[in-house]
């Protein structure tokens, strides 16, 4: 033990340093937030409650019912029922997510070729019954209006960067998905 160390030991230098820090903190503003009185905005791309993207042109969901999100979902909590419409088109009759089983991996968002499903920044949805966590197509569209509507596509595209925003073969053209993003 050197003289210096002995000195430190006798005069509790380390402890005093610590106490000084404590003392200084007494006069700064607290870092903890008083949730729920005080709320913190979610970070970009926070994986909160699910929503189905509403297509501004049609007013309906952008989802075409390809089922890829349901296929990739590791907890198998997405249920999609589609059928043939009057003009032989594909109609999404039911699109349902059992939110309580979701693990918020966002694979569904990544898998969707149309950028039609998203996890919104909304995270406060505690409730009293299981049914409230069973999201139907209508509820999911509402979620978009409520939690993503004003943020809009710009936010969505910027953060989630969906693989292909519009997946249709252009008229008379042979075009594949572009090489990068």
């Amino acid at each position: 033990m050197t003289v210096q160390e002995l000195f430190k030991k006798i005069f509790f230098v380390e402890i005093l340093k610590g106490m000084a820090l404590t003392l200084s903190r007494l006069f700064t503003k607290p870092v903890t937030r008083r949730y729920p009185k005080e709320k913190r905005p979610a970070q970009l791309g926070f994986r909160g409650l699910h929503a189905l993207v509403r297509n501004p042109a049609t007013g309906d969901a952008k989802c075409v019912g390809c089922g890829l999100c349901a296929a990739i979902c590791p907890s198998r909590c997405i249920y999609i029922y589609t059928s043939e419409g009057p003009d032989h088109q594909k109609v999404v009759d039911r699109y349902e997510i059992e939110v309580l089983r979701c693990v918020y991996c966002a694979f569904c968002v990544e898998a969707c070729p149309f950028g039609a499903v998203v996890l919104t920044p909304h995270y406060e949805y505690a409730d009293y019954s299981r049914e409230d966590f069973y999201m139907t197509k209508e509820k999911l569209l509402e979620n978009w209006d409520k939690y993503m509507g004003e943020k809009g596509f710009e936010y969505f595209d910027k953060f989630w960067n969906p693989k292909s925003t519009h997946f249709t073969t252009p008229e008379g053209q042979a075009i594949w998905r572009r090489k990068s993003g």
Partner: protein
Amino acid sequence: MIKLTIDGKEVELEKPVTVLEAAKKAGIRIPTLCYFEGLSPFGGCRLCLVEVEKLPKLQTACTLMAADGMVVRTETEQIKAARRAMLEFLLINHPLDCPYCDKAGECELQDLVAKYGPEAGRFAEGKRQHPENFDDPIIVRNMERCVLCTRCIRMCNDLQGAYAITVTGRGSHSFVEPFSGGKYNCEYCGNCLTVCPVGAIMSRLHRHSYRPWFVEKEVETTCGYCGVGCSLILQMREERIIRTIPRVGLGLNNGLLCVRGRFGYDFVESRDRLSTPMINVNGELRPVSWQEAYEFVIRRLKEIKETHGPTAIGGIASGRCTNEDNYMLQRLMRFVIGTNNIDSTARLYYAPAVAYLEQIFGQGITANLIPGIANSDGALVIGGDPTTINPILGLQIRALWRSGGKVIVVGAPGGLKRFASYEVVPRPFAEEIVLSAVVSRLVKEKELKGELTHLEEKIKGLKEPAEGDLQAAGVSAETIDRMVTDLKAMETPVIVIGPELLQHGRPSKNLFLTAALAYAINARMFVLSERPNYQGVIDMGCLPDMLPGGRPIDFEMFRHKIEETLGKEVPQNKGLNLFEMIDAAADGRLKALYVMGEDLLFSLPGREKTRKALEGLDLLIVQDIYLTETAKMADVVLPAASWSEKDGTFTNLERRIQRVRAGRTISSGRPDWQIVSEIARGLGDDKVFSSAHDVWEEVIHISPLHAGLSYEDISEGKAIWPYHGEPLRGVEGEFDVEGLDSLPKVDTDAIILNMHRPLYHSGSTSRRSKALISIFPEPVLMMNPSDAKGIGVEEGEKVRLATSNASIEVKVKIDRDLQQGVVSLSNTFEGVNFMRFVDYTVEPTTGSMVITNNSVKLEKVKE
């Protein structure tokens, strides 16, 4: 022995195969697109390219035969580049609409592109444009997606034999189209859908509601339409059957299905399904609870048994119900009520045919393997068109012809038109003359084996038709010569017997002649079965003179054995058969009839007689899935669970026992065996059956045929005749033939109404399938063009068809293959069904019915 090296692995081959198959044997997967197991190789897609040392260019593995000393590599950079290029070429035209396409997820192109494909294409030229075609009610074509692998065409031509589709157009604008244009005019087997690797041809029945991962469970079951008993898989999502598919390697159909099995499954969802028991109160059927219905049935049956004795009660089993259902009904009748009055519509031809042939040759004579037909070197088809009655069996005959065998058809060839070496079409119902001539000649030229003396004696007593008789039958002596020569030359022949052989003329004589022929040329016999379980009905003892296991009731020994095992008494006297029950009901001897899964009014000739008989009953119990015409007359209606809603087994026409499994878990009715069991318990039966398996356990206890045959054995496909049990041999011998020394008179002028057995329908069940109805929507009278011309009608116009029973207007359809002097009508549609027009008599020897009152008056209807 061929030795070659594939990817460094040594492969030894017994017989020469392609490199692709050799690689498969070594466990190496070479990607393919145009190759499909069972179809001829095509070598068009060039995805299976492999590198072979000493060969300058890449080779297609699916067409290249493996040779000794070859060194093959299957995944080199060069190969990958070639595959990438091939896929890029395919994607020039193939649209990228996977999210909308129903094939996505099980599309071979999708998988290949994911593995080998280019990330981007370099072609900016336009894609081939081809709007989706919805002209057909069942099959939708999207030719933008077609990759021209020609698998569908090879399937349709080489396996199905319908020759309905082809490639039209040139170069990159080629596409596949039916010869008939937009709408298909084909056999609708849907086998082309199975093989299409992409979403170019698809079923409309599950359009836009299918994804492979939407399937919640797959249930392996047996088709409920005909006696072939194809294996199929129900793909279920919740309570709905999304679709039914065959699987290569599964069952005797090995990847093939016919139109009924593939598309006819939606009858179970019909709105007409019964959902509640009903009791007739003052002429009106009122819904009641199950409890009330059971109590009613039990009370009434008890009363009738007490006042009139057990023989005043009868039961009708069903060829559409499982073995378990049928066993339970015969159990109720025999062991609980105490009567042998039990029969089914197998009586219409199937049961008499099998019983008669077994009497001559011994039990199990008709139990031959269907897949073996294709390996035979000749076939004689008589009494019906196998390609419509038992389509998958029909395909086997087509395959037989393809591989060089002789196919001789007696009667209108129907679906065997292109696959028959020749057909012999005698005047209506003169088959007997043709057969007599053939048998007489054959036994002169070929010595008999001397095994079955009874049969040989009778053959000796056979009257040979003279030249004049043949002329009257409309067949020349040369034809007979030719038939005799060909039949004699066959080494492993099969004889296929259809319903018409028994339903016209003299059934016993026709059967005897066929048996004689089979004996002379040593042929295997097949009796076509219109229902999935006619054979099961017989084996379960739903016959007035047979116990379960096909043991004759006359033999005390068999009765005692059952009495010992079950502790129940078995009634001694032969019961009434179907026709006798109708007669007995008409004259008041039969008071109660329990009809399970059968619409007697609809499926029997002599409708008026049947109706009167049923009206005269004190108690008519009808257990069915629909409110049939017979059910409407019932005192009590019990809703049953249908195929795909209950477990059990079917026995097909080759006596293969196969499992039937429930896909749907909820049914608006209850399984037949369960309903019968409840009633039996009310009548004092003490045994509780809680599942179909319980019922089967009892069957294998008391039926010597099925001894020890567990559900597990059946699932493993071991239930092929003669199982582990003992078939009954040695009691055969005595049998009678009617008119051995005489020949029938041929009526040359009359127009005969015959039963049309369309491929697209099966009795009245198929009428409830929207899919099948969309193919064959309304009753039509099939007519030969010259007959039609005779009364001045054209296709689509109406005629009035009349016998003394009915006179009804019906649309005409021209059928060039129909013989002159015969018109035919199906027994499918309510109000205009074949049976309504005709009557019957019963031939005592076989107990089979013979259709009468079938010469019709035809008159064009003026618009």
